[in-house]
Every structure is written in structure tokens, then in C-alpha cells.
């Protein structure tokens, strides 16, 4: 009996040995935005789940500043051995084209894209426009009259608003805000509408203080079942903010494959799906192979939009 147990233990150890070659020490996931933000909470949850699978803790460290540039630059400066990860997003393109860093997406290798969040177009609950068509018709008849609060100049929400102008053929007045304050200003009747990530507006939707007229994803959000997509509202536009994990270019393929497995499994699990839904995010997995091409395609779109609003420096 004792022998059999010892044999079983030895077998398990032998099986675990090749996997333990990587990671052989704790990993660090750099988050580009502040502790407690939607980006941060999603990363912390995934780090916890993936760390369990990897057998090494994944520590989340917030390095905020310059729209993500500070954190990207830091991670790129770390050894490319798979232990330094960055919680990546479209910010890699916005920070580069705004001229805030010398690195672009080609400096990194994608591990996996994991979540996506649409942008929500919202008005105050008692606003005269019933749906997105009415709001856009009003904007078309009164160029510049509709003031649309976004989460910062050159931010992803701003870019979606600019794309919306292009596709719907309207002229809007863009007002840059930080997190949450765009909604506050809508509630205070100082501006007509806001474009925000769903997590930033969920409380006001449930409190029936605002109405979401449309979301920019290709399907409706589970957490906002009544809000149609822009396409349903007659605007040919789909734009979502993706988030994923990336490592410095030159990281060994085996390490990337191991990380890809751990993070995609974590993201696909029911625990994370549920967590993400409450933060207004959708699990949207793309493996390492597709991720690089996906980033390149997204980068071209973002470059064009930033060019249009005069923020493109490189």
C-alpha cells in the first residue's frame, strides 16, 4: 500500500516536472490603469485564476500614466522570459499614435486577447430622444448641438464617437471627461449624452437615471439586454475595446504557449464569465496566433481615427 502510494506520488511529480520548467518564479502582470478600475479588476481576477493553473502566483502591479505608455515601456524593458506580462488593450495603439511612447504593438507578442467591452451611448432618462435614430436625426438637423461626453481626448470612447460621426454623417461636440464624470454631467443637464464603457454607467442604468440608446458591439450585452447595437439602430459601426495579455517580443514560444493555455482557460471558465459580465465585459478569446494580426488590423483603424481628430503624432 505504502509502495503504491509512493509510486503514485513519483508519477505525479514526474508528470509535473516538464511543466514546472516554466514558470519557475512568480509572474508579474502590469496593469496600466488605477487600482479598482474595470481594467484592474478584470486583470486581478484573471491573475488569480491563471496563477492557480500556472502553479506560480501572478502579482498584479499598477503602473499608470500617459495613457498606458509608462507601463508598456516598463514591461518592454524586462527580460523576455515570460515572467513579465502586460494587461494589454487598444491603449497600445492610442498611446503610440499620440506620441507618448516609442513602442508600438510590434514590440510585444500577443499571448491571448481575452475580453472585449463595447461603448455605450446614453442619455438622461427624461431626454426627448427615444432611441439612437432620434438622437442622430436631431444631431443631423442641428450640427454641433449634441454634446457628447467621453472619457478623455484620444481615449477609446472618444474614437468611437468620432467613428459614429463619420458613419452616421453627423457633427457632434465632444467633451472630454475622466472616469464617471461624463455621466455626472449628463445627469446635471449640462450635456446631452455620453459615450462610456458599460461598467461606468451600469449603476445609473439600474437606477433608471439614464437610458442606453445603443452599444457599439456586434451583439447586445447580457447586462444591458434592452440596449440595441448600433447596427440595429441603423449605423454600420462595430467597435469594441479589447483587453488581453502580451509579453515583450522575443519571449520563447513555449512560454507563450503555456501562458496562453493558462489565461484562455481562466477566461473561459464560468467563474470569470460571470465576473466579466457584471463588469460589462464579454469574454472574447483570441489565441496567440490570431492576436498579433488582430492588433495590427485594429492599430490601422485607430491610426486613421486619430489622424482625423489631429492627435496622431506618429
Amino acid at each position, binding site marked *: 500500500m505504502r509502495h503504491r502510494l509512493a509510486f503514485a506520488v513519483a508519477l505525479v511529480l514526474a508528470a509535473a516536472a516538464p511543466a514546472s520548467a516554466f514558470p519557475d518564479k512568480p509572474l508579474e502582470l502590469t496593469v496600466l490603469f488605477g487600482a479598482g478600475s474595470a481594467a484592474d*479588476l478584470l486583470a486581478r481576477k484573471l491573475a488569480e485564476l491563471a496563477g492557480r493553473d500556472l502553479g506560480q502566483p501572478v502579482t498584479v502591479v499598477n503602473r499608470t500614466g*500617459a495613457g498606458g505608455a509608462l507601463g508598456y515601456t516598463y514591461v518592454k524593458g524586462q527580460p523576455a522570459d515570460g515572467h513579465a506580462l502586460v494587461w494589454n488593450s487598444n491603449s497600445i495603439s492610442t498611446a503610440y499614435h499620440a506620441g507618448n511612447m516609442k513602442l508600438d504593438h510590434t514590440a510585444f507578442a500577443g499571448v491571448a486577447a481575452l475580453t472585449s467591452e463595447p461603448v455605450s451611448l446614453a442619455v438622461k432618462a427624461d431626454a426627448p430622444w427615444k432611441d439612437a435614430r432620434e438622437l442622430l436625426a436631431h444631431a443631423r438637423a442641428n450640427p454641433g448641438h449634441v454634446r457628447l461626453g467621453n472619457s478623455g*481626448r484620444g*481615449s477609446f470612447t472618444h474614437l468611437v464617437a468620432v467613428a459614429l460621426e463619420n458613419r452616421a454623417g453627423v457633427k457632434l461636440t465632444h*467633451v*472630454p471627461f475622466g*472616469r464617471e464624470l461624463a455621466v*455626472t454631467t449628463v445627469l446635471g443637464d449640462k450635456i446631452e449624452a455620453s459615450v462610456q464603457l458599460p461598467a461606468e454607467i*451600469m449603476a445609473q442604468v439600474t*437606477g433608471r437615471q439614464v437610458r442606453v440608446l445603443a452599444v457599439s458591439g456586434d451583439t447586445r450585452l447580457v447586462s444591458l439586454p434592452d440596449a440595441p447595437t448600433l447596427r440595429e439602430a441603423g449605423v454600420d459601426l462595430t467597435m469594441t475595446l479589447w483587453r488581453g495579455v502580451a509579453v515583450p517580443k522575443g519571449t520563447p514560444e513555449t512560454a507563450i504557449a503555456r501562458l496562453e493555455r493558462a489565461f484562455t482557460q481562466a477566461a473561459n471558465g464560468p467563474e470569470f464569465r460571470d465576473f466579466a459580465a457584471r463588469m460589462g465585459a464579454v469574454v472574447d478569446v483570441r489565441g496567440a496566433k490570431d492576436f498579433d494580426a488582430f492588433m495590427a488590423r485594429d492599430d490601422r483603424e485607430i491610426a486613421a481615427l486619430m489622424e482625423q481628430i489631429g492627435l496622431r503624432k506618429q
Partner: protein
Amino acid sequence: MSDLFVALTPPNLLACFIGTVLGTVVGVLPGLGPAAAMALVLPLTIKLGPTAGLIMLAGIYYGAMYGGSTTSILVNVPGEAASVVTTIDGYRLARRGRAGAALAVAAIASFVAGTFSVVALQLAAPLVARAALAFGPAEYFAFALLGVVLLANLTGGSRAKSLAMVVLGIMLSTVGMDPLGGTVRFTFDLAGAQAGLSFVAVTAGLFGVAEVLATMADPASTTPVARVRFRELYPNREELRRSVPPMLRGTVLGFLVGLIPGPAATIASFVSYGVEKKISRHRDELGTGAIEGVAGPEAANNAAAGGGMIPLLSLGLPFTPSTAVLLSGMLLMNVTPGPFLLRDHPQVFWGVIGSFYVGNVMLLVLNLPLVGVFARVATVPPRFLMPGVLVLCVVAAYADNNNLFDVWVVVGAGIIGWAMRALGFNPAPLVLGLVLGPVLERAFLQALTIARGEVSGLWASGPAAVMLAAAAVAFVAPAVLALARRSAADPV
């Protein structure tokens, strides 16, 4: 309402205790802010369920305001942004051997303000929340401008020197990312400077490191404080009596300022200090170690923390990074703050409110005995104490954003702070500029954009117009008065 007693069940009491203890620790340690600490324990709190989980998170939130004054008073290093003004009189009190009194008054002021703000929160939340919404960018710009004008000469002395410091502070605040996003400015191609000059690093340098340098240059200047007897450890009757009016004024001011977006607790502490400097019976002593300079601001920052809960609970709007973490926590626990919170989750709502009462008592009981322990720090000889202060400042600067550049900032700010002292410049107005600079810039641009480029948009609303007019009067009045006095004394 009977749900208020939910806070008294053993699991909730324990959650409250752990939260407030963690909050105190976060407050005491410079560089570790409440938002980061709350994000760290968030996964744990989710497992506790909404009532206990939110009680614990909230405990960290308001508990941090208690501990923030500790290092401000003892070693001239602000523990939290909102405790910067506390250094001015708190540290001088400590050097005079009254560290215990200052620490105890800070704890009592925090308790009074914390308790008052929860009463106000309980009774007036929805009403006050609506009023907070009337504050748009134009009003916020006018408010910040009025603040700059009224508070510039916070510490007395030369008006010109103070204004120069405020302007320098505003200029320094423009380093890094434009507050509305988009472009990075004045970084001289230093990657680390892109996040801007860290507020924690600048204040730790200007106050803490500068103190260390001054002591090194003139070891006789900082003599160790004699160990005090137990009876002298706590505030005497005179000190307590003098603390009451500033405490009450600070509470009301702090609560109101807490309702508006931005670094409310920090602004509230500055406003309270400015008010005491103008109307306190002992205003001449402020700046030299007056207990009013601790009682007022420490009440104000705690009341602001309570005030900040109102927009969160009534409207679901977090105006500070800490309340944003609370909001995330609530959403993850399927509790949506806003007009229906009380209807949908009475247990959670009243449980959290009840825990504020309980938590404030716990914090007082926890902090008063700690006074004796902490007060001994002031009696440590400078040759042992000052190296420790230097380490504390550097660690705080790095911990704030894990950015090595901030360590250079804390050292540089220390050297500049030391030079400023030698030349008779006070660093407090500079910090005011650093806090209000981004607020001014952001609100100014937003107000103009909202008015579609019309400058008149800045004073189109009543409150904004009144505040701007008050700022203009306050700016011109001293010069006019001085001129009038001169011509009266010297008739032509």
C-alpha cells in the same frame, strides 16, 4: 431602519474591525493609499457577501482618514494627501512636546466629523445628492479659482511669495499627461515623467526630506523632545476647548466639499485651514503650532470622506478613486447603488450606515491608546529618527506608482524644499497649486467646450457667477485696501 442593527451581528462587527484596522494602517503608511488597499482586499470581501464585504471596504475607506495625520504630526511626512496641511501645525506641536495632544485631537476630530457626516448621510442623502449634480464644470472652475485666491496666503507672510508658490505648484501640475487626455507635456523625453510629478513624492520631499536636510545642516535645530509623563500625553483642558470650534467648522465645510468631484478631502482640509487662519480667535498662532491647525483639517478630511459617500449611494457616482473601488465592489456583489438601493437592499444600506457609527467608535478606541505608542517616536534622537524618515519618504514615493522616477522626484523636492525654507518660502501654497492646477485646467476646458466655445459659459450660471465675482473681489481687495490705507495716512 431597524436594519441599522445588522451592523452589530458578530460577522459584521468583525468585518468592520478588520476594515478599520486595515484603514488605520493604510492611513499611517505614506504612499499606500486607500484605493489600492481596497482593490487588494476586494476579492476577499466578495466572498464575505455584500453586507459584511462592503462594511469591510468602507472601513478601509474612512479608517485611512484617521491614520493619515500620524506621520504628518510625528515626522512631517503626510500619510495621505488629505493630511498635508496637518503637517504645518501638527509637526510644530510635536517638536514642542505636544505630539500626544496633536494625535489625540486628530483622532477626536476624525471621530466627531465621521459621526456627524454619517448622521447627515442618513438624513439628507437624496436631497443633497441632487444639489451636488448642479455642480458642473463651470461651477467647479469658479470654485477652484476662488479657492486659489482665498487660500493662496494660507500660511501668512508675504502675499507675493505665497502667490508665486501657488503659481509654481500649478505649473508643476502640468507635467505629464494633459488632464483631459491625449498628449504628454513637459517631460523632456523622460519616460518616467509621463505620469506627472507624483503628489506623494512631491509632498514627502517638500516636507519630510527637507526636514531631514535641515536637521543635517544644523543638528541643533531639531532637538529631541523630552519624554513626557503620562498625564501630559493627552490634550489638556485648554487644548480641548480650543479644538471644539475648528472641529465643528471643519466638519460642516468638509462635508459640503465632499459632495463635489475631485480631490475633495484634500481641498476640504485646505479650506478648513484657510477658514481658521481668517476667523479663529487664535489665528495669529496658526503656523507656529496651534491645535486649531490640526483639529480643523482633520475633521474636514473625515467629513469629506462621509460626504463622498452620498453621490455614491444616492446616484451611483464615485467622485474619488476610493469610492470608485467601492462602486466596483458593489457591482460585483450585485448591489447597485443609486435611487433604488434602499428599496432593493435595505440590509446592505442600513448595515453599511450602521457600520459607520460602529467603525468610528472602534477607530477612536483603537487610535487613542496608539497615541502613547506613536508619541514616543517624537522622543527618538534625530540621528536615529531622521534616517528612518528618509527611508519612509523614498519608499512612499516608489510605492505610490511603482515608478523609479518618483524616487528622483522625492529627492529633488527635498532639496528644493530645503532651499525654499532658507529663502523664507512656505511649501504649503505650492501643494495647493499642485492639487488645484489639474482641477482648474480640466474644468476650464470642459466648461468652454460645453458652452461651444463661448467664454460667457464660464459665468452663465448663478453659482458660477457669484463665485467668480467673489474671487475677483478677494483678489483685488487687499491691494485696494492697502492703497486706501496709504492715502489715508498720507493725504495729498
